[in-house]
């Protein structure tokens, strides 16, 4: 009999499931990929077969035209892979379509979280705690300084600033997949029903969200409107456009950014952000450690992020843990 858990192995380019010969979130093209969610550092084009939730597949199709080999799996559904491996997709609460993947083989259970958070998000179903033997967790915000405030507070900051500068606009840098739609949905929930202006790169993803039942209210494209019309409005763009020439067409933009990194002042200054909004789709330190406790696995594997600190925490709390060195994950914009 094979050694326990020898069927699943971290490699530099992803997590390899031996008996099924498939990879989870591989950073290069493979024959069979199980994809947790649609962010570019997890979902890449060019795989022979891609197993993911319908929403994730739709996102990947939008980005890479990957209709071929797409194998949809609903939340809660189990798919049987070759070699006697079962994969179940479970909500991760990260972005639309995001899933944890539960892998079962020879009576052993492994959960790969992909990216996740524990806060409520109007754009996707919440994270579900799943018991397992090995818990493979992300650690993007794996330092005790990271504590994301309630999102309502951050919305208040944004709307207060807007109200104080009726002749300007607030330009919010937000990751085009997930963060942007969540910010818009939360603004609506906070009672802001004015039109929100979008950078062109945001449009198709917002439409995709709406097609999946996420109401975003009235959205307009910056390119179709004059400076005057946009005074007193909120404009959403990808973080890369914040300090770009593009923003010159806006009326006196106040630069805001919605990101968990905004918790650290110097990080905000590095990006020339005037209004930092601490909003993240990743678990903060408290959520990461709470989740490890609740899942209560025999062993925790920690992927990308600040794994040193989470390893230390596991050590202090007598939990077995190891760090995985996976390449290709980028987290700077979240």
């Amino acid at each position: 009999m094979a050694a326990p858990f020898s069927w699943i192995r971290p490699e530099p380019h992803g997590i390899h499931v031996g008996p099924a010969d498939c990879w989870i979130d591989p950073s290069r093209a493979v024959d069979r990929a199980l994809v947790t969610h649609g962010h570019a550092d997890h979902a890449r084009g060019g795989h022979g077969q891609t197993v993911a939730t319908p929403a994730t597949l739709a996102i990947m199709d939008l980005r890479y035209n990957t209709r071929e080999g797409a194998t949809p799996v609903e939340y809660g559904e189990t798919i049987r892979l070759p070699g006697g491996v079962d994969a179940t997709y479970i909500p991760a609460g990260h972005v639309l379509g995001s899933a944890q993947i539960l892998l079962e083989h020879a009576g052993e259970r492994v959960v790969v979280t992909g990216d996740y958070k524990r806060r409520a998000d109007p754009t996707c179903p919440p994270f579900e705690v799943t018991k397992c033997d090995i818990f493979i967790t992300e650690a993007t915000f794996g330092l005790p300084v990271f504590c994301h405030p309630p999102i309502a507070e951050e919305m208040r900051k944004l709307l207060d600033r807007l109200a104080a500068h009726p002749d300007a606009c607030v330009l919010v840098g937000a990751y085009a997949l997930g963060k942007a739609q969540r910010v818009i949905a939360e603004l609506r929930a906070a009672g802001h029903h004015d039109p929100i202006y979008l950078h062109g790169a945001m449009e198709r993803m917002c439409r995709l969200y709406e097609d999946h039942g996420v109401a975003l209210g009235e959205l307009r494209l910056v390119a179709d409107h004059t400076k005057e019309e946009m005074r007193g409005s909120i404009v959403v763009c990808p973080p890369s456009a914040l300090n770009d020439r593009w923003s010159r067409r806006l009326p006196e933009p106040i630069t805001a950014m919605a990101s968990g990194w905004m918790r650290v002042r110097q990080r905000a200054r590095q990006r020339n952000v005037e209004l930092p909004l601490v909003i993240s789709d990743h678990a903060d330190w408290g959520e990461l450690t709470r989740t490890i406790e609740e899942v209560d696995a025999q062993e925790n594997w920690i992927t990308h992020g600040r794994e040193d600190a989470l390893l230390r925490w596991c050590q202090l709390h007598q939990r077995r843990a190891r760090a995985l060195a996976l390449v290709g994950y980028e987290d700077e914009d979240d």
Partner: protein
Amino acid sequence: MEAFAALIDALVYTRSRNEKLRLIAEYLRATPDPDRGWALAALADGLDFPAVKSGTIRTLLKERVDPVLWTLSRDFVGDTAETASLLWPAPAAAPSPPGVSEAVELLSAMTRKSVLTELPLLLDRLDADGRYALLKLATGGMRIGISSRLAKTAFAQAFAVPVDEVEEYWHGLHAPYGELFAWAAEGEPAPDIANLPTFRPFMLAHPLEDGTVDLADYAAEWKWDGIRVQLVRAGQGEAAQTRLFSRSGDDISATFPELLDMLPFPAVLDGELLVRGSAQGGEENERTQGGAASFNALQQRLGRKTVSKKMLAEAPAFVRLYDALLVEGEDWRPLPWSERRARLETLMPRLPASHFDLSKVVEARDFEHLAQIREGSREEAIEGLMLKRRDSPYIAGRRTGLWYKWKRDPLLVDCVLMYAQRGSGKRSSFYSDYTFGCWAGDPNDPHGAGAELLPVGKAYSGFTDEELKKLDRHVRGNTVKRFGPVRETDKSLVFEVAFDSVHASKRHKSGLAMRFPRIHRIRWDKPAHEADRIAALEALIRD
């Protein structure tokens, strides 16, 4: 404290200089004395509380947070005060923030022993932003992108007074600057500093980039490789006092006591502090008793609170004069440079030649000729040339078109990146401090005994923000070992390093120390074995 914390927070996130000025001015107008005076002092110069240091904060946090988690957090955030403000355990009681003056009083009263119990009580009264502002205030340098000049300009703007006057009085007064506010805000008489040995802000130069100047309008002087100082004597008879100030206005009198009895009349003199030796100014002018030693020799005397007799005898200091601002009650600053210079020359016989000489004017036929003279200046270990407009008054700060510094072209050497460390402040969490080395032995000799890289210097400037991101990625992707906050890299990247001079040093394994090393170019294209050898640097030593 809430208003101050809000101000600090707003300043951190404000880019526009005008907006920063507006924010500070608004705070100064709206805040009562003495809170605003302490806040202004904190912004302009930083306050000093002997019992409260960064180390104190680390100690307090390590009692409350796992030390490893503290270190990892501090390393990422890049600022002790901010890390502590974020990690401080949330107090049970609602915040009851102290006023700025109350906080200053409490911090002043703390001793090295009591601080460990009293500072936590104070922190427990604040929220995270308040803790950040308090810890910034308590540990001196704010490092939030506000220069001393900007703070004073904001003060001047708040009360519509000339900023040059603010500068003039500033160094004769102390925090919380009651007299300054009384004068500017309440219309009381201006503070009287005539008989105080007060620092006057220096006139500074812009670098001469690619332009030329007409020598009919500009005079040239050597730029000596010492430290710029101001020697001030004020008051009459028994009450007379003499002080020596550094470029930033720090009182360094105690470090160079031999100069304090040498100025026989009230005056404010501007010059270069040097120590005796033979390396600099080899060409003697008639009043020079001898040349000056290299900066390396001067460095042995800097930063000392007391100085031994042996040091005084071995490395005596003197001032090579550039200018005079005030002499015997008369303000020379409005006079043109040529007039000040002529008067300074007539003043020299009244100053002891053992401790003063005059920086000579460099004569040249034309700019071309001057360029040749500058090229030849390397041998004399001079930093370069100064170009001063002949008709310009002495104006505090850096005014365009009046003074230029024209440094020698730097020396260049190709080095290999060996270690990287995270920066702080604006560069926190980026690997931005680089240690690089040159080859001992020949890396290209296949039959040689093997070459080894020895560190020759460290630099953290000379690259753009974009390049910094790329370098940061290189370090993360090419790490071979970690030592706490330091990463050792795989010795694959070559930097072209620019530096002003190189000296023998016992402190480094390579036996070399560079002056002002900075990254000149990143040679992504160059293989490491083609970098320079230690011998190439040794050949450039001049002392």
